[in-house]
């Protein structure tokens, strides 16, 4: 993975010094509340219900073991012994003290981490495929381009005060696991007719209160033009994006209101004027690519015989392998998911003890690297089949081996009313209740691939509109209600879920979900997955049952 050079290190160190100075000036009354808000947000610091919340960047979801130990240390020293992985591959601390945040940032800088631009109306952390570089369906590894974009977006002087936040995602595989169609800019590495690899550029997608599927603005962009094209889009957005209404300020609204053709003409005109002075050289690309060179794989990993034997002997192990590992491009290797969705733990949360232990496991079994996923789990990406059994055993002891990846209890969930000042309704408690109702793992496995996404408000941090089942918390005269949508997807078949009907009360939401699952089990055809069935029959059969019961 990418290692900082002197410039990278100096930049984060100077950023820490700058924020320390800004915090001191704020505490002395030399910077107003309003101005400090803009400055702290650009360093990942929100003010929440109970305390500030600090969001640390996980650059395209990649961490090393040293960084994980540092997160554990921060959780122990400055927080309440845990942190939270988000849907954008970042890490959040829920209980830091404002005056200690500069110290936390200084600690992070010592392990090549930062919280720069993890919030605020600026370009955010670029996300990517959590299986980048190891999956079997990859056109090209997207991570070097993510790093190039990370550097370009970091402290970009012209685009730090945009109309609204701006998120980019890069995918390099045939199956989109980075939700590129739901980002302000989505980049997809593809091959053209000549067999050269470049980018398909998608613009104007987004979730939140107005979910929109992005549109292709450039079917094929040569790699050397990546940054000039991004610059052109950002400049047009900065100048013409709406600033009169924050709910209409995202680029998706600009693209929609001006029409893709008009928007694209403006971008093209700007791009042609800057393109030739701003090319990415092959030397630069190759230098960054070298930082993502494959680790020293064992060419003989497949020769191991113990793995097959264990699979046959141990049903629980076999089940875990089936649900919590993914195919790897190197024979004899697997990518292993660490489920942060144990039934009794809030989705995405991890303790300091678990973090330290995962760091050790990464060092022993996966070249010292860890990834975070969009569904708030972790991955050890390079594990040999001969190590899987031992690793499973150790993960199980850490409560990180719940065999539920991609199933109904692998819910995405925002912090909700328990922590977030924006939320209208609780989400962690509902997730727990649904988990308790679904306590039969065989039933969960029988349901199979089903993604539930639940947000505590319209801002949609948990991407409920693209959940196969989406749950959205709303406030009705001071009580918590939940709207249900069915049929959303953030993958190749991108879709926004259809509303099932009126919102249901808090004491009815779990029953509504189990009813939906029962309707699916009774009406599916053979191995038909949930999403396929919803697409075939629509919401009506589900609706009839859910509202008949209430």
């Amino acid at each position: 993975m990418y290692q900082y050079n002197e410039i990278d290190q100096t930049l984060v160190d100077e950023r820490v010094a700058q924020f320390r100075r800004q915090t001191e000036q704020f505490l002395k009354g030399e910077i107003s509340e309003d101005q400090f808000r803009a400055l702290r947000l650009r360093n990942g610091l929100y003010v929440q219900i109970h305390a500030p919340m600090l969001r640390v960047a996980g650059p395209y979801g990649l961490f090393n073991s040293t960084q994980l130990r540092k997160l554990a240390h921060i959780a122990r020293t400055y927080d309440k012994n845990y942190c939270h992985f988000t849907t954008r591959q970042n890490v959040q601390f829920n209980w830091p003290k404002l005056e200690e945040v500069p110290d936390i940032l200084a600690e992070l800088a010592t392990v090549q981490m930062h919280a720069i631009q993890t919030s605020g109306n600026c370009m955010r952390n670029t996300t990517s495929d959590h299986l980048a570089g190891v999956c079997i369906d990859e056109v090209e590894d997207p991570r070097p381009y993510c790093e190039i974009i990370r550097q370009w977006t970091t402290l970009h002087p012209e685009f730090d005060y945009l109309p609204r936040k701006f998120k980019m995602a890069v995918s390099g595989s045939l199956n989109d696991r980075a939700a590129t169609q739901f980002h302000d800019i989505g980049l997809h590495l593809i091959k053209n007719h000549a067999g050269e690899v470049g980018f398909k550029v998608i613009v104007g997608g987004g979730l939140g209160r107005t979910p929109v599927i992005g549109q292709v603005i450039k079917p094929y962009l040569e790699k050397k033009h990546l940054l000039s094209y991004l610059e052109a889009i950002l400049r047009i957005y900065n100048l013409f994006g709406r600033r009169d209404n924050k709910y209409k300020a995202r680029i998706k609204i600009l693209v929609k209101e001006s029409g893709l053709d008009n928007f694209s003409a403006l971008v093209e005109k700007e791009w042609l004027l800057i393109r030739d002075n701003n090319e990415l050289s092959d030397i630069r690309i190759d230098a960054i690519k070298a930082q993502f060179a494959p680790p020293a794989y064992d060419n003989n990993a497949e020769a191991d015989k113990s793995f097959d034997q264990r699979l046959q002997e141990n049903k629980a192990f076999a089940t875990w392998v089936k649900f919590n590992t993914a195919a790897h491009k190197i024979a004899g290797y697997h990518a292993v998911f660490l489920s942060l969705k144990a039934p009794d733990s809030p989705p995405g949360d991890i303790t300091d003890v678990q973090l330290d232990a995962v760091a050790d496991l990464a060092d022993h079994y996966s070249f010292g690297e860890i990834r975070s996923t969009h569904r708030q789990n972790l991955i050890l990406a390079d594990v040999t089949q001969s190590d899987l059994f031992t690793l499973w055993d150790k993960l199980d002891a850490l409560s990180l081996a719940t065999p539920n990846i991609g199933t109904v209890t692998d819910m995405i969930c925002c912090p909700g009313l328990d922590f977030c000042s924006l939320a209208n309704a609780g989400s962690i408690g509902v997730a727990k209740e649904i988990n308790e109702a679904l306590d039969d793992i065989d039933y969960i496995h029988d349901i199979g691939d089903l993604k539930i996404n639940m947000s505590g408000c319209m801002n949609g941090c948990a991407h409920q509109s693209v959940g196969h089942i989406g749950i959205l918390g709303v406030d009705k005269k001071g009580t918590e209600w939940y709207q249900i949508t069915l049929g959303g997807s953030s993958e190749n078949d991108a879709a926004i879920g259809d509303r099932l009907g009126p919102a249901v009360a808090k004491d009815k939401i779990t029953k509504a979900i189990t009813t939906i699952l029962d309707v699916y089990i009774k009406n599916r055809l053979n191995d038909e997955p949930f999403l396929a069935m919803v697409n075939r029959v629509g919401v009506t059969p589900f609706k009839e049952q859910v509202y008949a019961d209430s």
Partner: protein
Amino acid sequence: MQIVKDKKIIDDTWSYVTDGAELVNGNITISLARWNQNHQQLLAHEGKLGLRITPNDTVDEMAANLHRIDLIELEFPDFADGRLFSHAWYLRNRFGYQAEIRATGHFMPDQVFYLSRVGVNAFSPEKTEYLPFVLSNLDDFTVKYQNSTN
């Protein structure tokens, strides 16, 4: 009244002429709207001319006359309005404007590093006591990832 220009605190020698007011002697700044209405009369002015632009203005409009302009003021109505950063970039990079670009109004002393990188070389902060902050904040970073205008 003092400002920061080219990393030094200096006295401001320019007079701000509001729309509709009589022109005064010496160096004056006028709004882009006034310039567009009667720039013939303004070109006859004996002192130097400066233009004040706001985020809503389009800088292309004045490209042809930039050689007659010795100062462009970016008037910030709100520090969060980032359009003026792009306007500054256009003036320096697209139109080759060489003279002074000055930030005025409601910008933050903590934005001057970015402003300097898109070509702003003078700063007239909201409060005089901000002048030392402006000066020191210009040196917040010694490294950068992108091309700079300054």
